[in-house]
């Protein structure tokens, strides 16, 4: 990983802008195809940074195809009691004054400098070389410090024993979990389940791809349209950006 481990708080804010700038000023070699599965035995590489661009103008209020697909893919119950896991939520916003309504999916923003990784006492919370933020459940002690540190409230704690292991993601009681960007699918060259479901609904509101490749559809779109990262003031440099907020 390129990010220095001893990142000082003082340089933290400037680091965010520097990283964003690197993406723009390095139109280097394209090392990766969007739809190519990584060969067996090859590690995830920092030449790739996976990200998403969510177009809220295409996202419909009342449509939760992405959330349902996420639940199905990862074996979540889909219940929304306080003790149920939610990796993805639909959020409806109303702009004050104008009354303009916006609907968008919210999940782990896959920060370049993730606070959940900073606070984890066992190094269970980690960022993979290709920018996907994950929980190594073999190490997680369930302290939930990361849940408190996350400004997006993206993580859930598994309160009950998991009996149905039908999902592709191993899940277990006493550990913290969140959106994995469907890492098992991405490693096979597929896009995340929510992206596929959204396209299946004909909305195509979520664009997924490699932010480090200037020729990828997502990078080209980010180059063309105005987009924002949520709570960009925190300087976390999220992998997820939004259009139309």
């Amino acid at each position, binding site marked *: 990983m390129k990010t220095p481990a001893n990142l000082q708080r003082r340089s933290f804010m400037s680091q965010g802008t520097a990283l964003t700038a690197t993406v723009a000023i390095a139109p280097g070699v394209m090392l990766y195809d969007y739809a190519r599965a*990584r*060969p*067996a*035995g*090859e*590690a*995830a590489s920092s030449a790739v940074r996976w990200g998403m661009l969510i177009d809220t103008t295409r996202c419909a209020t009342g449509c939760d195809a992405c959330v349902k697909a996420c639940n199905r893919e990862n074996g979540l119950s889909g219940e929304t009691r306080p003790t149920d896991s939610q990796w993805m939520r639909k959020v409806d916003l109303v702009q004050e004054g104008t009354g303009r309504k916006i609907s968008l999916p919210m999940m782990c923003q896959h920060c370049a400098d993730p606070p959940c990784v900073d606070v984890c006492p066992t190094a269970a919370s*980690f960022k*993979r*070389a*290709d920018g996907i933020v*994950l929980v*190594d*459940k*073999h190490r997680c002690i369930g302290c939930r410090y990361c849940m408190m540190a996350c400004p997006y409230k993206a993580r859930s704690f598994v309160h009950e*024993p*998991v009996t149905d*292991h*039908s999902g592709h993601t*191993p*899940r*277990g*009681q006493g*550990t913290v979990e969140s959106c994995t960007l469907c*890492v098992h699918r991405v*490693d096979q060259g597929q896009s995340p389940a929510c992206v596929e479901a959204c396209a299946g609904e004909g909305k195509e509101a979520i664009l997924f791809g490699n932010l480090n490749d200037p020729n990828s559809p997502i990078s080209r779109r980010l180059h063309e349209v105005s987009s924002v990262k949520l709570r960009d003031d925190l300087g976390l440099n999220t992998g997820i950006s939004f259009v139309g907020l």
Partner: protein
Amino acid sequence: MKIRRILLLLVLGLVFWAGGGGYGAWAGVPIPDLDIGQGGHCVADPLYMRLNHMNLLIHQRDQTVRQGIRGGPYSLAVCVDCHASKVNHSVLGTSRNFCQGCHEYVSVRIDCFECHSSEPRNTKAMITGQSRVVKESLK
């Protein structure tokens, strides 16, 4: 601790050696009567696997989770695919089932299956496929 570990391995090795070799003199030592499922050619020599499977699994698991290296030969899913019982399609359930039986015998608690599936990967596809056929025939 090291001596205890060596002793344990020695005893285990003897027991399995005796069981596998079918030495009549060792008939007094009870050995687990395991349902090895499909069985066949394992990813490594069975005796080596008996003593080292946990190290192989942990090594590959860390590489897969943290570095994203996939497709290694020593995955838990591969163990389960071959060794799930043909009776209950699982490596757990009774003292005859492959993982549960042996770990019970040596008094080792396994927590793999609190998160991972104890059923082979193709069973689920088979079952869902079958139920789909049944549903469609009801239409």
